[in-house]
């Protein structure tokens, strides 16, 4: 219901820098995921948005309004906390009713809204319990319930479904996304689970060590990671990132490695030569590789290192010249451990990263 601009925001805790020079624009009604590993400053960003933490430098705008100085209650936000933050002396129903009661909503409406939210979250049978009598996942759903009973300008979710089991988590992803789209409430959603971010977000902000790495749509983040860090963090199983040397043979660039050589052409070739770099990281996702027991021209030769079944797919790790390629293939693949095998690839899906800076050079 309002656009959010985070402009040159820094967060210091004493000497520690939790967030560095963050710039983010969330459009009105957009679902933005802040994705990053533990300790990268996601919660700090969230808490600054909520007004629970002082903004050390820079400013945050809701619409055109600077909100640095606004108290949380005046920001029209609703937040799910990482650690639930339920009121232990209140029942589940009272917990969920709290924001409505603060807003002075009449009793009948409160009861109805709480019941609706509880049904949606499948906690309607727990309404009379106290938080101590709930499991972690149930607490988390109460915390979500407390947020979705009303329709604020901004939803803030700090890892709201991290403690649910896989099945329920998948359900909640759909429900939250659905709810958000229906209500059109601008949402900032913090998670360390890249799958969650990819599946829910309109745009993802990937953070690492307090620095924003990349901000873009899930497709952009997935297919055009700006650096090796993003490439390695997003996607499961992770992208293969193999260190290779650049060489030229008859003016044609190629990547050499102890186990293989890759001839580059077209765009990739130009890019490889442009930077004059000696070493590059060759990146390709496991699903863009094919493994076979039969030799084919240009294929990388290696031996099967492990086989891991991922439900419908098989993850084969292939050792070649001290490095490993992860390949996603069908469980029908017959290669046993230590058998020689051949990996073929499509350069259209390949990425090149500078070995020094880690930045994508394509």
């Amino acid at each position: 219901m309002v656009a959010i601009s985070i402009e040159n925001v820094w967060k210091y805790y004493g000497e520690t820098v939790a967030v560095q020079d963050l710039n983010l624009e969330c459009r009105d009604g957009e679902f933005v995921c802040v994705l990053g590993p533990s300790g990268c400053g996601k919660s700090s960003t969230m808490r600054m948005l909520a007004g629970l933490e002082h903004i050390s430098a820079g400013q945050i705008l809701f619409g055109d309004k600077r909100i640095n100085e606004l108290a949380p209650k005046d920001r029209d936000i609703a937040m799910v906390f990482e650690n639930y933050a339920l009121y232990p002396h209140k029942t589940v129903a009272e917990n969920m009713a709290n924001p409505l009661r603060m807003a002075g909503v009449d009793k009948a409406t409160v009861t109805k809204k709480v019941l609706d939210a509880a049904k949606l979250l499948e906690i309607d049978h727990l309404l009379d319990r106290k938080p101590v009598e709930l499991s972690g996942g149930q607490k988390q759903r109460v915390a979500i319930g407390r947020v979705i009973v009303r329709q604020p300008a901004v939803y803030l979710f700090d890892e709201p479904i991290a403690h649910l089991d896989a099945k329920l988590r998948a359900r909640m992803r759909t429900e939250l996304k659905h709810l958000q789209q229906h209500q059109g409430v601008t949402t900032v959603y913090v998670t360390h689970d890249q799958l969650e971010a990819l599946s829910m977000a309109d745009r993802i902000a990937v953070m690492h060590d307090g620095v924003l790495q990349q901000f873009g749509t899930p497709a952009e983040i997935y297919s055009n990671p700006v650096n090796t860090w993003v490439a390695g963090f997003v996607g499961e199983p992770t992208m293969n990132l193999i260190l290779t040397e650049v060489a030229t043979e008859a003016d044609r660039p190629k990547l050499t490695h102890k186990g293989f050589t890759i001839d580059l052409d077209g765009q990739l070739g130009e890019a490889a030569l442009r930077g004059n770099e000696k070493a590059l990281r060759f990146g390709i996702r496991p699903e863009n590789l094919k493994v076979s027991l039969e030799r084919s021209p240009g294929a990388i030769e290696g031996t099967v290192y492990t086989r891991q079944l991922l439900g419908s797919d098989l993850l084969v790790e292939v050792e070649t010249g001290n490095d490993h390629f992860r390949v996603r293939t069908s469980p029908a693949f017959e290669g046993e451990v230590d058998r020689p095998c051949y990996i073929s690839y499509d350069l259209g899906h390949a990425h090149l990263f500078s070995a020094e800076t880690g930045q994508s050079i394509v």
Partner: protein
Amino acid sequence: MQKTLRAKRASFSAIEEDHGYAARRLDYGPGALNEEPKRRYHILLMAPAILTLAAITIYPFFWLIYMSLHKVSVARSDRWVGLDNYARLFGDVKYTDGWLLLVKYSALCLTLEILIGVVLAVILNGSRFEKVLVTVFLMPMMMSPVVAGLVWYYLYNGTFGWYHWLFQSIGILGETSILADIDTAMWGLVIVDVWQWTPLITLITLAGLKRVPQDQLEANMVDGAGSLRNFFTVSLPNIYPFLLIAILLRFMDNFRFIDHILVLTGGGPGNATRILPVYLFDVSFQFFKLGRGAAIAFTLLIVTIVLGLILVRIFDDPKKQVASGEAGETTDD
């Protein structure tokens, strides 16, 4: 919108059922429950403590009952009078007035101490001077009640008392000392008690405030609460058990400690401050009617115990602790 969501839900559960992997439930129990480990030796370990306690509390208790049923005097041997001592209490105006005054005194002290104590604690909590100020506040508490009484006796004094002069200059008091006027004497005592014991409430409340979870305060702020609202809906329910302990301690002390009253007014002027414990003191140790004194003491003891138990009950009852910030819900036990 709700409709579509609900439809979605229905389809979800349908999927779950279709798969047919509803969890298998056992509908029978184990043949026999394993015995829980017993701890017998702890009775043995506690025996010496229990016996000592019995000797120092139970014996005097029965001695009190014995005295209350006799006419006890120092010179002659005790004479059995049955319930006579008790029967005579009902016709004793000083006794009934003593109760009324005690209730008034105790209520005034408790209310003021809790109010001021909690407000002080909230102001002090997290302030820069917290440590220094807490130490300063502790001083009255460390003073013996008799000494406190004497100090205030001088401060209140009609001719050279500094406070008397202060009150007089503001126009609250006339010529007579606060303690010499029937209308104000009680207030004089209440002020001393509040002065001496509010710090205790502050201290206990501070300890409670330190344990109010920050995340609940934050969640409540995001839910739309201002700081005052935050205090009543989150802090207060959290410090409520601490406050109950403080109330329990203070009310029992009010029923027992009369040191400063004896120093300041001795029950006067007239009978304006002769609260029941003071009257009890007079009967027993001024007029040496030990039997009657014991009867008064016994009634006082019973009421104290009953009130104390009620408070402890409230304290133990988890439902009462809900309180949800609205005071009053807690006291209608």
